[in-house]
C-alpha cells in the first residue's frame, strides 16, 4: 500500500515540470508574435498612447523574467487578465465556457466507451463476420474527419429527417431537455472516431490476454467465454484500455475546438478560435491554458487509475 502511495506522490510531482513547461508555452504566445503584438492586436488605427497603455496593462514593457513572474503570480491568484474585445475578466469568461466544453467532451467519452468497449469485446471473441464488421467500423471511424461526419449528420437529422436542431446551445440548468437535444449531434460526431480507437485497443488488449496460458486453464476448468472475459480477461486488459481512453480525451479536447465551432457551442474551443481571428491574445492564452490544464489533469488521473488497476505499474516493475 505504501508503494502505491509513493507511486501516486511521484506521479503528482511529475506534473509540476509539465505544468511549468506548459505555462511557458502559454506565456510566450503573446510575446512571440512577430512585430509588435499590441499594435497587431489593436489595429493600425490605434494611437501611440493607446498602444503604450495596453502594453503597460499587459506588463509587456518590463523585462521578460519580471513579466513571467508577474504573470504566473496573477495566474495563481486566478487572475487571467481581461478580454481585449469585451473587457470582461477572462476568469469569468472561462467559468461560463468550460462547463460547455466539459459537457461535450464528457458525454462524448462516455458514449465512445459505451460503444467501443462492448464492440471490442465482441471483436476479440466473435466469429469471422463480427471481426469484419468491427474492423469496418474502425477504418470508417478513423478515416472520416470528425467535422465532415458532423456536417453529414446535420444533413441527415436536420435536413432530411428534421428532428434535431442544426446548431445552438441552451445551458443545462435552464432547459435540460433542449440542452441534450442540442448536444446529441456534436456528442455523436466526436464519439464515433474515439469509439473506433477504443474498440481497436480493447480488441487487441483482449486478444493478447486470451492467448495466455491461464485462460486456457480456465477454459479447461469449463468456464464459459462470457465468464472468462468478464471475470478474468477484461481485468487484465483494463490498464491498456484505460490508458488509451486517457490519450483519447486529449484528442477529444482538440476535436472539441472544431466541433464547437461547427455546432456553434459557446465552449472554450470556440473562444480560442474566435480570439485568434480577432487577435485577442489574452483570450487565446486563457483558452489554451484551460484546455492544456484539463489535458494534464486527465493524464494524471488516467495514470493513477492505471497504477491502481495494474499492480506492476505502481510497484515500479513495469514502465
Amino acid at each position, binding site marked *: 500500500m505504501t508503494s502505491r502511495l509513493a507511486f501516486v506522490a511521484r506521479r503528482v510531482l511529475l506534473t509540476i515540470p*509539465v505544468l511549468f*513547461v*506548459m505555462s511557458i*508555452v502559454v506565456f*510566450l*504566445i503573446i510575446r*512571440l*508574435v*512577430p512585430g509588435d503584438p499590441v499594435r497587431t492586436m489593436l489595429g493600425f488605427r490605434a494611437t501611440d498612447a493607446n498602444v503604450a497603455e495596453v502594453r503597460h496593462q499587459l506588463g509587456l514593457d518590463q523585462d521578460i523574467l519580471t513579466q513571467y513572474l508577474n504573470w504566473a503570480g496573477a495566474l495563481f491568484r486566478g487572475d487571467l487578465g481581461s478580454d481585449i474585445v469585451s473587457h470582461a475578466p477572462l476568469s469569468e469568461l472561462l467559468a461560463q465556457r468550460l462547463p460547455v466544453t466539459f459537457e461535450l467532451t464528457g458525454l462524448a467519452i462516455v458514449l465512445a466507451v459505451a460503444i467501443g468497449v462492448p464492440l471490442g469485446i465482441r471483436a476479440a471473441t466473435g466469429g469471422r463476420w463480427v471481426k469484419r464488421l468491427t474492423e469496418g467500423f474502425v*477504418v470508417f471511424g*478513423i*478515416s*472520416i*474527419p470528425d*467535422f*465532415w461526419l458532423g*456536417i*453529414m449528420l*446535420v*444533413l441527415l437529422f*436536420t*435536413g432530411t429527417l428534421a428532428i434535431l436542431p*442544426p446548431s445552438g446551445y441552451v445551458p443545462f440548468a435552464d432547459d435540460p431537455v433542449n440542452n441534450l437535444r442540442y448536444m446529441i449531434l456534436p456528442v455523436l460526431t466526436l464519439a464515433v472516431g474515439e469509439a473506433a480507437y477504443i474498440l481497436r485497443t480493447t480488441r487487441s488488449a483482449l486478444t493478447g490476454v486470451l*492467448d495466455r496460458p491461464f485462460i486456457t486453464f480456465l*477454459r479447461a476448468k469449463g468456464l464459459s467465454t462470457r465468464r472468462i472475459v468478464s471475470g478474468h480477461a477484461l481485468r487484465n486488459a483494463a490498464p491498456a484500455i484505460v490508458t488509451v481512453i486517457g490519450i483519447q480525451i*486529449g*484528442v477529444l*479536447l*482538440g*476535436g472539441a*475546438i*472544431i466541433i464547437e*465551432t*461547427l455546432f456553434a457551442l459557446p465552449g472554450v474551443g470556440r473562444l*480560442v*478560435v474566435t*480570439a*485568434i*481571428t480577432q487577435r485577442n*491574445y489574452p483570450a*487565446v492564452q486563457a483558452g*489554451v491554458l484551460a*484546455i*492544456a490544464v484539463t*489535458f*494534464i489533469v486527465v493524464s494524471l488521473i488516467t495514470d493513477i487509475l492505471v497504477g491502481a488497476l495494474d499492480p506492476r505499474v505502481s510497484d515500479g516493475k513495469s514502465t
Partner: protein
Amino acid sequence: MSVQTQLERVAPITTPRARRRSSTRFLLGGGALLGVLAILAIAAPLLAPHDPEAVVVREVLGAPSFDHPFGSDVLGRDVLSRVLYGLRVSLLVSVSAVLVSTIIAVPLGLLAGYFGRWVDTTISRTLDMILVLPAMLLAITFIAILGPGSAVAALAIAVIYLPILARVMRSSTLIVTRNEFVVGARARGAGHLRVIVSHVAPNAMGPVIVQASVLSAFALQLEAGLSFLGLGTQPPTPSLGGMLSDGRDVLVQAPWVEIFPGLAIVVAVLAFTFLGEGLRRAFDPKGVAE
C-alpha cells in the same frame, strides 16, 4: 477449441508468405489510390474543367450537371475544379509537413537510440515537451503566434509529429544496435558515424517509414480541420477544409458543396491508411511503429 486453433497458437498463421500476400494487397491498393490522387492533384490545371476561383453569378448553387459534375458553390464556382485544386494544397501541406518532420526526426532518433545515456535523455526529454499539449491545440497555438496560412499549418504539423517519429526511430535503432553485425562493425574499427550511416540507419528505417505514412493520413485531417476553422489555407486559394466551411450555411439546399470535398478527404486519408498498413505488414512485423 479445435485442433486448428491450437496449432495456430503454437505456430502463428502469419508465415512470411502469408504476410507478404496480405501486405502486397494493402500496398497495391493504397499505393494505386494515392498514385491516382497525386496525378489528379498535379495535373489539376489540365484536368479542371473550369477556373477554380472564377465567380459565375448565374451558376450560384447549381446542382451537379454535365458541365459541373460536382455542382457549383455559393459563388457559382465549379466544385469539381475546386476539389482538384484543394486536393493539391491538402496533399502538398500534409506530405511536406510529414517529410520535414521525418528528415529531422531520423537523425535525432538515431543519436538517441545509438548513444543512449545523456544523449538519449537530452533528446527524448526535450521532444517530450512538445507532447505537453494535445496536437490540435498545439497547432492552434502555433497559428495564434505566427498567423494563419498553409505554410504555418505545415510547420505546426511538422513540429507536432517530430516527437512521435523520433521516438519510433529511437526504439527501432535500439533494436538494430543490439545486432551482432553492428558490434562486429565496431570491432573491425569502423567509427560511430560510419556504423550509424551504413549499418544502423538502413536497417532501422522500416518502422519510421510506416509511421510517416500513417501520420500523413492524420496530417491531412489536421490540415483540413485547420482550414475549416479558417486558420489554415486562406481564401481565395481552394482547400478542402475551407470548402466545407464555405458551404455550411447552404448545406440543406446544396449538399453537393459539402459532400464532394469531404469525400475527397476521406479517400485521401484511406489511401494513406492502406499504404501505411501495407508498409507495416511488410517492414514492421514486430510493431515498433505506434
